[in-house]
């Protein structure tokens, strides 16, 4: 089987350090997968923002207390000599990611990754304050005015507030969060806590507000080694070219097949809603974070044209070529690659749990 190469198109556009790049104003999208993404945003963020506030036996349940050099995890206490378990946890996380990716592609990127989650939250704020895509494009192109200043200031204030609360929560995993809060309010933060709080707030603000998809495209190593984990049975988002081509606009009443047209009406919505600005009809590209906005967008158009949904859909390369559906895809999940990842994962978990159980706490 030949090695799969996912094309990486070299950037020919040079952008100076003082210019960020042209902002991508993705069109808002509604649909089944958008709903899933928001459900996961709520779920992950409830866990992230809520966990440091839980207490067990009067102490913070999850606390990596750097100052006291101990890690508290729901009543269990770990010291620096237990760092091996952190290493095991990281290995388990990595293997799980490989297994998950081999089966389901970049579901992590589109649904769970903090970068995606925070960018979604920030973009939601931007939409609420600045308006829909057209309004935002016009606002950016307009000359500076008092109105524009106020709108932008409002947005950045909202962004910074979310960033500060996020930063406070994050630092609250490394030093008791209630104490941190009290010290912050009474302005008794030491220089170290204060600088870390500021740093993470700025990093969140910068990554989610400014860099957005650039993180996925340029900074994230996961995007680059996905082609090592993918195979022809990995679930990806794909455009069914056999069904869609030749593309072309037509009236709803027109018989597409009779006129030599495929289902794709070339509306370009799949490109407009894409947060990384790619055209999924060109095939799988490394920039695609698997957010399924194009699926939702296209399905809406298919609905309005009276066509079957799924012109762009989750599928595997093999299934797309053979015209197979979900059942066939599921049957292909157990295969040598996934079995190997799964076995390695179970082994490490078993070793780690055994070791933990036999550990003599201090």
């Amino acid at each position, binding site marked *: 089987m030949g090695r799969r190469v996912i094309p990486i198109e070299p*950037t020919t556009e*040079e*952008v*100076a*350090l003082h*210019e*960020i*790049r042209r902002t991508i104003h993705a069109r808002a999208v509604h649909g089944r997968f958008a709903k899933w993404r928001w459900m996961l945003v709520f779920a992950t963020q409830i866990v992230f923002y809520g966990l440091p506030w839980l207490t067990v036996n009067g102490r913070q349940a999850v606390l990596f207390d*750097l*100052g006291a*050099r101990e890690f508290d995890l729901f009543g269990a206490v770990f010291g*620096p*000599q237990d*760092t091996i378990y*952190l290493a095991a946890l990281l290995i388990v996380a990595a293997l799980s990611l490989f297994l998950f990716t081999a089966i389901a592609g970049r579901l992590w990127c589109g649904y769970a990754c903090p970068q995606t989650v925070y960018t979604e939250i920030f973009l939601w704020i931007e939409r609420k304050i600045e308006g829909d895509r057209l309004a935002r494009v016009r606002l950016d192109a307009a000359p500076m005015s008092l109105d524009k200043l106020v709108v932008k200031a409002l947005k950045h204030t909202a962004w910074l507030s979310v960033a500060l609360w996020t930063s406070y929560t994050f630092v609250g995993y490394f030093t008791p969060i209630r104490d941190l809060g009290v010290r912050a309010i009474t302005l008794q933060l*030491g220089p*170290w*806590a204060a*600088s*870390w709080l500021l740093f993470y707030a700025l990093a969140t603000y910068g990554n989610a507000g400014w860099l957005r998809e*650039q993180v996925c495209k*340029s*900074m994230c190593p996961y995007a680059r080694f996905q082609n090592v984990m993918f195979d022809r049975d990995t679930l990806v988002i794909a455009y069914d070219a056999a069904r869609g081509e030749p593309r072309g606009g037509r009236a709803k009443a027109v018989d597409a097949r009779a006129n030599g047209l495929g289902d794709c009406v070339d509306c370009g919505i799949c490109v407009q809603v894409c947060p990384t600005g790619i055209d999924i009809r060109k095939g799988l590209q490394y920039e695609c974070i698997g957010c399924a906005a194009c699926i939702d967008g296209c399905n809406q158009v298919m609905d309005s044209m009276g066509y079957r949904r799924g012109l762009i859909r989750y599928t595997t390369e093999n299934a797309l070529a053979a015209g197979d559906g979900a059942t066939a895809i599921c049957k292909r999940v157990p295969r040598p690659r996934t079995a190997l990842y799964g076995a390695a994962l179970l082994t490490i978990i078993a070793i780690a749990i055994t070791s933990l159980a036999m550990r003599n706490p201090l």
Partner: protein
Amino acid sequence: MKRLTLERAMWVVWPGFLTAIAAEIVLFTIFDPLDLDIRSSREAVYTASFVAFWVLGMFSSALTLFLQRPQAESPPP
């Protein structure tokens, strides 16, 4: 001289940050700052070390990028 792009800057800053995290974990595992002959709080030592590791990491990545530049054409004899 080629202008520095934001992308290339991130290729220097971000790997340095990741390396600093890894180095910090190792530091945390091996040393207790209070046991060392440094009259500063733990947080101070951890923070200063993190920044130092980050700078070192950035230097390493920057050097890699520099070495990656295409060789200049040698002038004809």
